């Protein structure tokens, strides 16, 4: 077993870290203050990312993507996680699910997404279907060669800047051993399609400048050629790709926690109270010890889960463990980093208050901590008949 990075991995980490420090950090303050990423800044980040060949690093090389495996991509996103999400979203990483594109879809969606010409968003959640995804009400009925979609999606991240949306819709019901359940199909829906509207969402405490949207489908006609994967097999498509997005959440939490720690550590060494450095007080030094231990644990858990995906090993449980642990670790570490700074930690002058606010959503989106624990325990108990 070897825990070091290869030269290539080290270069990926160094390059992305330096990109985040030079191209992302300088814009964070304006995004925090205004809640908006000025479009020229977003475009500049995107163009620079394209220029250095890091755009769509997660997608297959045969279509022009970077072709990184899960482990290398997880290292990349860990460094990206240090920066404000409203800005790093322009360091484009189209949804991995687009690799399921076939035929004309490749030229219409996958290829332009990889080239940075079209931006995607992914829509699953509804007002009445959060963790209970299959309870979705957004549905489609077949009419000739088209499907007519009706319903509402919400909390759809960065749909405001999306050119098309990957949307999951109920397309009928089927009997299963646990009763009747909805059949789900995944569609590709272009912005501007009649009957499809992308509306501003809610103001969130987390991730200012990274907006969520409400999608409305009102008798929106989508041709059957816009089905991603197979009809009624939307969950199969989703399951194949969406576990990886939990790795994204986990690894970005690790990167962000490390940034908070790197602020807290020198402060503990330099700040003097009662005639000595505050790091000399056990109340502070033990916090640092716990913080770095938890950050490293989350880092290793996440990287090993990514490695398992690359090896083709079962990774569902491990990814859930990484997601729940890393996001809860981030909550603790960002909170303690503020505690070490005292009042100053809450001021806008430092990124800590933002990291602390941003951390809250990580335990909710892409599967709540409770759903992750459900996945973990189910995987443990099922083989025992539990």
């Amino acid at each position, binding site marked *: 077993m070897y825990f070091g990075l290869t*030269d290539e991995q080290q270069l990926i980490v160094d390059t992305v870290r330096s990109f985040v420090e030079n191209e992302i950090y300088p814009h964070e303050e304006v995004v925090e203050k205004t809640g908006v990423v000025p479009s020229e800044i977003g475009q500049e980040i995107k163009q*620079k990312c394209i220029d250095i060949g*890091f755009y769509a690093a997660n997608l297959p090389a045969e279509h022009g993507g970077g072709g*990184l495996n899960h482990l290398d991509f997880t290292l990349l996103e860990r460094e990206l996680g240090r920066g404000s999400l409203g800005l790093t979203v322009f360091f484009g990483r189209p949804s991995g699910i687009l690799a399921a594109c076939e035929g004309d879809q490749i030229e219409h969606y996958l290829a332009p997404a990889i080239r940075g010409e079209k931006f995607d968003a992914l829509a699953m959640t509804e007002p009445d279907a959060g963790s209970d995804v299959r309870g979705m009400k957004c549905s489609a009925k077949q009419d000739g060669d088209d499907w007519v979609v009706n319903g509402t999606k919400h909390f759809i991240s960065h749909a405001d800047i999306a050119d098309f949306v990957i949307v999951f819709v109920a397309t009928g019901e089927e009997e299963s051993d646990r009763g009747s359940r909805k059949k789900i199909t995944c569609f590709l829906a272009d912005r501007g399609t009649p009957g499809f509207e992308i509306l501003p969402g809610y103001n969130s405490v987390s991730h200012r400048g990274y907006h969520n949207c409400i999608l409305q489908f009102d008798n929106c006609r989508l041709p059957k050629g816009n089905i991603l994967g197979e009809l009624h097999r939307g969950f199969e498509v989703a399951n194949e790709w969406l576990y990886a997005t939990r790795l994204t959440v986990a690894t970005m939490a690790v990167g962000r926690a490390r940034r908070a720690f790197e602020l807290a550590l020198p402060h503990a060494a330099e700040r003097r109270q009662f005639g000595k450095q505050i790091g000399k007080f056990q109340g502070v030094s033990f916090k640092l010890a716990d913080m770095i231990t938890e950050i490293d644990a989350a880092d290793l858990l996440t990287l090993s889960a990514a490695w398992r995906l690359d090896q083709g090993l079962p990774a569902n449980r491990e990814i859930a463990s990484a997601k729940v642990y890393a996001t809860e670790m981030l909550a603790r570490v960002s909170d303690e980093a503020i505690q070490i700074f005292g009042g100053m930690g809450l001021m806008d002058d430092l990124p800590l208050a933002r990291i602390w606010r941003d951390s809250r959503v990580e335990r909710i989106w892409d599967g709540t901590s409770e759903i992750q624990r459900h996945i973990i325990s189910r995987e443990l108990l099922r083989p025992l008949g539990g």
Partner: protein
Amino acid sequence: MLEIDKLEKILVGLKRVVDYNVRVRVKADASGVETDGVKMSINPFDEIALEEALRIKERGEADEVVVVSMGRTECQQQLRTGLAMGADRAILVESDDEIDSLTGAKILLALVEREHPGLVILGKQAIDNDNNQTGQMLAALWDRPQATFASELTISGDSATVTREVDVGLETIEIDLPAVVTADLRLNEPRYVKLPDIMKAKKKPLDIVPLADLSVAPAPRLTSVEYTAPEQRQKGVIVDDVAGLVAALKEKGLA
């Protein structure tokens, strides 16, 4: 009219140094600076030197960029980074011994004699010892012109125009090639490494030459006695007026 050929080859030196972000610590036994488990990088001025060489090549004024380093086997990491930035091939002169400026210059001379580059670009100094010697020594040993502290470099055939950052401002000189140029901070801003180039770097040639093969005998002229951290800066005092300032300076024997 004389047909002017472009440079066949540019040689660039890359030194492995403690990363500029790292707060350096003296080893417990005071024998040097701690490098165990410390992030190491290309000396930033060397990175600028490489960037300049790559730009010259990209302008079609040179055919090949060769990066060289000297020291322990770990220096391969910095050479791989150089290859990922765009250098064509790399040479590591391997040695476990400490290499001082003069030995370094002699090693570079041996490589120059093997490779016959039209131009050697080095960093003006390395951020570890800040010696600022190797480039000048190489030029003297090689008996070729030198242009140090370069902030602008243009190649025209068998000569180069170099703007130098000197104490009084900027000085522009013309030198015949081959020559040694050392890079200053403002020469350029090094690029980000491109992802496809990271993947290609592994396949580029990296030759490892044992120091003994170069018939350069390391003859260190310097002996390190002891390393100590600089004293912590004392808190300053605020004086009320100029008279107070003069008095304070006098008290410290500075005026």
